[in-house]
């Protein structure tokens, strides 16, 4: 089991969700975050005040998957999030020690495999 964490552009979030859906990756959390990854700062002006926006809005996906789903998930994230410009984001893949589905008490692979509703 792996936890796949992806930081992507907010305007690509819908494309990512669509790509994940097509790859049949179902269990997803997403949150809005702010970050900085070497992209050019955006300059904004409010009356006489000019500011450099050092942090950019990003969306963070967290997806826990079984081994077989790691590569499809990464492919879907890249397909959905890539524009080719600096600032497209990162994917981090980290090992998962335990997973428990709260409702049933299932653990590990059973817990990251979606039930058909």
């Amino acid at each position, binding site marked *: 089991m792996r936890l796949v964490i992806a930081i992507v552009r907010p305007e690509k979030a819908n494309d990512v969700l669509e790509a994940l859906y097509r790859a049949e990756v179902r269990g997803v959390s997403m949150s809005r975050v702010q970050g900085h990854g070497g992209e050019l700062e955006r300059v904004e002006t409010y009356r006489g005040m*000019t500011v450099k926006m050092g942090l950019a809005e990003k969306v963070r996906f967290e997806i826990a998957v079984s081994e077989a789903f790691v590569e499809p998930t990464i492919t879907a994230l890249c397909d959905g999030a890539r*524009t080719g410009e600096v600032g497209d984001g990162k994917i981090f893949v980290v090992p998962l020690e335990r997973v428990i589905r709260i409702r049933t008490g299932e653990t590990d692979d059973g817990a990251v495999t979606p039930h058909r509703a």
Partner: protein
Amino acid sequence: MTGIVALAAGVDAGDTAWMLAATALVVLMTPALGLFYAGLVRAKNTLNTFMMCVAALAVATVAWALIGYSFAFDGSGGFIGGFDHAFLNDVTFAPRDGTRIPGLLFMAFQASFCIVTVALVSGAVVERMRFAPFLAFAALWSILVYSVLAHWSFGGGWLQAHGTLDFAGGVPVEMGSGFSALAAALVVRARKDYGRQALLPHNAIYVLVGAGLLWFGWFGFNGGSGFGANDASVLAFVNTLLAPACTLVVWFVLDLLRSRQVTAIGAATAIIVGCVGITPAAGYVSPLWAMALGALAALPSYAVILWRPRTRVDETLDVLAAHGVAGITGILTIGFVAQASWNGVADGLFYGDAGQLGHQALAVLATPAYAFVATFLILRFIMLFAPLRAPEHEEALGMDIVQHGEEAYATGEGAILISTEPVPGELATTDRS
């Protein structure tokens, strides 16, 4: 000040007092529309959407003072007025014929109509049209479309001469904006995500507050179109209360039938539809018929609002349904229920004059055709010089940041103060982070 009260000959103090207030009420409608529209778009386009209404306040006002007013209200040519009032020439304290208010105030009152109508059309192109071409569009459209249609129905043009009744702007404001919006949506084309993603309103409270302020302003819009403190203004004012209330009730019922829930954004829309429906008829129909008209106006507009998103036409904020279609409903209803005993001018079909319906139908044929074709040509003309839309990646980022360099909901987190003076070189920095 000498303390002497000066008033030009033929000017009435009471009429003038009301029209000063009414003009201010109508000017409020444009920022109210900005709020209404801003709530209906996504958060990243809030400022740009509101700014299009601010652009109308700027550009349409200047265009109106320089030439638009003259095209609309100078002389009685069939198609368009003349140049004699250009640059506000001969617009003075002397009253305009048929009114007892100063010509200068008459000009300002009519200017406020032109402004809000230009702002209405922006609803068709928000979330993707670039700001600079919109400024050019606002100038050309207010002169070549609004002024012409205002001349037809208010300024002694062919529709008015023919006997078409339009109390407060069913022709130039409502049908004019609605069908221009359709043309604009077709030329500028759909947003990149239209039909692929749900593009939802980001703040329903803005929408409700905007609709409420629009209704408030509409009392000046319709109530001022009698040009004084008189019976026609009182009738129009009261009808502007009654008709939208009936539209709301019917809209609630339609919402209940459709989804068992009354929606807030639906209610805000109903207020607009009701105000639009009664606009052309406000001073011509009895209060009870105004209520019937308000109820009736809900039906076709509701239908078009349900149908339009299923098409490929991204007429984004449904200007056609809310203004064009409801304007038609209002203009045609006059032909049935106008009552000389209330308006002192003309009867409709139900009161013995079938001919009036014909005059009204003429406006419903001619106005949309002119508005659509002229708007289409104006935008194609501007396209020769500059692209109308932002490129896709900028559209994705949101128009607030790329067109204005600001955000509606800036948190300031991570913002580094680089200067209290604008730095020209750095201002040009646009990135795609």
